[in-house]
């Protein structure tokens, strides 16, 4: 393995810390557990295929050819949004390089002053004033940075994500600043598609039953029963989710903030990011600028000189990167195969069922400093989809 590393060019995605998998030479970025994402794909493609096979021929002839055409357009839009959400960088913040980490440590020491021996040092918090409200920025011990406002650390992907919303197992990725609008459009278009298929299934069954009788209809088009079942259960969860996110967008809040109750309650700070105007909030979230990825995934690593263009220190290691050497070696070995087809390398294994993954605890990190663990904000327990699905299946 190490011989391969020396002779071929290494791209930066291969050395990125965190628990993401990369495909297509760094163009695609996803979480490690992709089982539920494959299920989502299967359900959408499967149900739509049944619709096109069983209902569309009849409806095109007896009602209008526009029906399947619109269904196809909607299906492509749903798939495009899903793939865009799943494959793009959600807004991952790169970890601090050693010099930056040291600089921040020095600032913290200076701010804390002399802590008497035996006493715990105060928590690492920085107060900033945003639109005349005091917001506390927490220090991330894994990434060694003070998290920007609205950023949060996802324990599943082991990355700090900007404007972190939640980690969605259904799309197999975190939802953050860069892909939130695609996620919202995915849920919205999927709601429309589900309602559309459900409605036309009913129309089709009614129309056919008038001619042939109800039982004969079901025998001729067995796919209809399956579609109706899938659509019925999907409808409640997806439409509910779309409604919830519409509410969040109108208030310019994230799921993470809503769950933690950051801006609710009388004694709490009011949301400083809201424009206090629903239209403005919606426009900012949905029609705002398309942020670029700050992770240069496809850039080439310079093997003989440090990654940072400015650092000229001759004694630094070939890749100035906070990952310790053993971890670095493990990552190298793992990621050389990632260029082909990514494997699940998690010790706990990919758990396709949502219920099983709910019991999973945050995976242990090797070689981490003995620091307070970041609470698993993005565990499936706090994931809104799973809680809605769980509620509905009771």
């Amino acid at each position, binding site marked *: 393995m190490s011989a391969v590393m020396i002779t071929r060019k290494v791209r930066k995605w291969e050395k990125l810390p965190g628990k993401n998998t990369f495909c297509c030479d760094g163009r695609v970025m996803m979480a490690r557990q992709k089982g539920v994402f494959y299920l989502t794909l299967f359900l959408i493609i499967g149900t739509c295929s049944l619709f096109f096979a069983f209902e569309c021929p009849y409806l095109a002839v007896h009602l209008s050819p526009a029906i399947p055409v619109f269904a196809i357009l909607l299906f*492509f839009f749903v798939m495009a949004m899903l793939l865009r959400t799943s494959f793009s960088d959600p807004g991952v913040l790169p970890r601090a390089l050693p010099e*930056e980490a040291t600089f921040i440590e020095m600032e913290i020491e200076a701010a804390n002053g002399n802590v008497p021996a035996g006493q715990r040092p105060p928590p690492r918090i920085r107060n900033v004033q945003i639109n005349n409200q005091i917001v506390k920025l927490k220090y991330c011990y894994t990434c060694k940075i003070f998290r920007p406002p609205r950023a949060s650390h996802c324990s599943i992907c082991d990355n700090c994500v900007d404007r972190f919303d939640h980690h969605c197992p259904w799309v197999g990725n975190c939802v953050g600043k860069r892909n939130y609008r695609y996620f919202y459009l995915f849920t919205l278009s999927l709601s429309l598609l589900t309602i559309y298929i459900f409605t036309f299934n009913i129309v089709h069954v009614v129309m056919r039953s008038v001619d042939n009788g109800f039982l004969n209809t079901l025998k001729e088009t067995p796919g209809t029963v399956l579609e109706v079942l899938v659509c019925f259960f999907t409808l409640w969860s997806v439409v509910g989710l779309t409604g919830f996110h519409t509410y969040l967008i109108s208030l310019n809040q994230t799921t993470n903030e809503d769950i933690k109750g950051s801006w609710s309650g009388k004694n709490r700070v009011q949301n400083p*990011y809201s424009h206090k105007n629903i239209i403005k909030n919606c426009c*900012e979230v949905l*029609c705002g600028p*398309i942020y670029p990825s700050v992770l240069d995934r496809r850039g080439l690593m310079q093997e003989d000189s440090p990654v*940072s263009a*400015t650092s000229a*220190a001759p004694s630094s290691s070939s890749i100035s990167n906070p990952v310790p050497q053993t971890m670095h070696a493990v990552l190298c070995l793992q990621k050389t195969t990632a260029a082909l087809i990514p494997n699940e390398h998690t010790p706990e294994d990919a758990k396709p069922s949502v219920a099983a993954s709910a019991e999973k605890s945050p995976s242990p990190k090797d070689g981490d400093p003995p620091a307070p663990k970041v609470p698993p904000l993005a565990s499936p327990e706090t994931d809104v989809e799973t809680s809605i699905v769980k509620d509905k299946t009771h």
Partner: protein
Amino acid sequence: MLTEIRFHNLQELRHSASLANKVFIQRDYSEGTTCKFQTKFPSELESRIERTLFEDTVKTLNSYYAEAEKIGGQSYLEGCLACATAYLIFLCMETRYEKVLKKIAKYIQEQNEKIYAPRGLLITDPIERGMRVIEISIYEDRGSSGSSSGSSSVFG
């Protein structure tokens, strides 16, 4: 004894000087999460560069980022058009933000060549640091005999 050294380009700077220190200009969150950097002048640069030049650089960078993140007619148009094409249009077109980032990269290179490198300083584009900080590297001339106790003897 004071030595006067001029660095004519960045290559010369890297080869003949060694990295002494790095200063990190932090983000200014007073107006929200839009990208803006603090214009506070760090004490480590006091002997190296004039305050006004530094502030000018940071203010210009801030204005570029504000232009990129501006929410107005053009961003709505871009957003709606992209949505109508299921965002496939970005396979062939550059987003407005990316265009501004290219302008920023050019501006930083120009500032480095004209102002910062002659003073033994180098600005790193914030995008390489996750848009969290502006990293300014302070170089010390290797050949100097350390005439002023550790601090640089390079003049611009």
